[in-house]
């Protein structure tokens, strides 16, 4: 089975930003321009992360998503500070196909069944930010890596699958933004446990990293940020490796 490419676009106010280890805010461009560029270049999916929940509460989210979804005909996932069924409804009615929720699933896992009963499990991408603490052990952090949870990442993957989420999006905090390759061990462990499709995020720096990932693991999607925003790789080369 083949894997799909996903552009991860983190937005703060009107800029796309990029960090390292989930921190640091370097402005890299205009969100709409970058998203359109990636779509035209053949990206298979777009993940928009609103880093300061700045798009919500104003109707700018609706306008922003509506514009994007009128021009980019690939699946769009939106995330960043989503908490309630109302947030989800708002996101979906604004043009998102899926919602990415991370911190709130830890704080309030009962929201999962509310969401999937209403919209089906395929709408919910459960995000996990994992940090390595020792050999074959990763912990879950929330709030963009700022808050401890006491959860073991692999246990949390299993729990989320039990709760009925549609996909697991796993980000290695250690690899994220470093362009030094994916955390293959983490991905394989998640792969063994998850009964739902996996999206991997964090670490890509070159095509060899992707080749390595494909050779050693099977995941359904890979999200790219740095390599796209800094023009390190082009999308058709990425797609060739994944497909």
């Amino acid at each position, binding site marked *: *089975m083949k894997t799909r490419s996903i552009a991860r676009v983190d937005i703060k106010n009107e800029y796309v930003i990029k960090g390292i280890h989930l921190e640091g805010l370097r402005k890299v461009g205009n969100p709409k321009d970058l998203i359109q560029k990636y779509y035209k270049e053949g990206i298979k999916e777009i993940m928009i992360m609103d880093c300061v929940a700045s798009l919500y509460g104003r109707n700018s989210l609706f306008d922003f998503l*509506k514009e994007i979804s009128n021009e980019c005909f690939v699946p769009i996932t939106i995330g960043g500070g989503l908490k309630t069924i109302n947030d989800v409804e708002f996101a979906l009615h604004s043009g998102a196909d899926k919602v990415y929720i991370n911190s709130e699933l830890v704080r309030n896992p009962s929201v999962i069944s509310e969401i999937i009963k209403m919209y089906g499990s395929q709408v919910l991408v459960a995000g996990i930010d994992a940090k390595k603490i020792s050999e074959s052990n990763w912990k879950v952090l929330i709030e963009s890596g700022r808050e401890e949870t006491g959860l073991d990442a692999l246990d949390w993957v299993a729990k989320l699958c039990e709760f009925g989420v549609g996909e697991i999006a796993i980000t290695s905090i250690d690899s994220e933004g470093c362009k030094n390759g994916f955390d293959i061990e983490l991905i394989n462990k998640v792969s063994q446990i998850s009964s739902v499709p996996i999206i991997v995020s964090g670490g890509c720096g070159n095509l060899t990293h992707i080749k390595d990932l494909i050779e050693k693991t099977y995941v*359904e999607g890979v999200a790219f940020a740095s390599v796209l925003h800094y023009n390190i790789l082009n999308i058709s080369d990425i797609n060739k490796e994944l497909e």
Partner: protein
Amino acid sequence: MKKNIGVIDYGLGNILSICGALEYLGYNVIFSNDRSSLNKCETIILPGVGAFPKGINNLKKIGMDNYLRDELSERKLIGICLGMQLLFSKSYEFGEHDGLGLIEGDVKSFKNLIDERVPNIGWRKLINHNYKIEKNTKFYFVHSFYVCPNNPNYISASSKFHNKTFTAAIKKDNMYGFQFHPEKSGEIGLEFLKSTIDN
């Protein structure tokens, strides 16, 4: 003169995507569950994302199940994803539920077919079809259930999920169904949708 395309409003589906795609293609979209509005359209789309029981119940609540059965011979009907599944006799999602019964056959779970991560989510090629598309064209799929038409003549395309072949598209008279989302499959998907509507 723009062609009128009806999109059934029954509370499910990513409506902005399908309506946006149709408008982008130059059609006049009538998003409705009112018979007289939909009757202005030569082609009707039944979209759908979510669970089968909710889908069929929502259609029944607003009488759109009867509308689709009554009006079938008068116009072209295109079912997308859950919309295609609803056309069938019965689904096994969350129990056993009757569908519209417009195509004989059941809707079954991948979980009973193979032991792999479900849903099938990603871009897949089509096989065993006569579409005028390039061999390696891929379309976006996201589904946990697949249709099994009793009559193989209604299968217009198949695809594979971990080496298991399943029905990806159907055609019966003027009724079309696609398990994949042409409105989410990039420019190729849009062209495909357009050629289905226009031909």
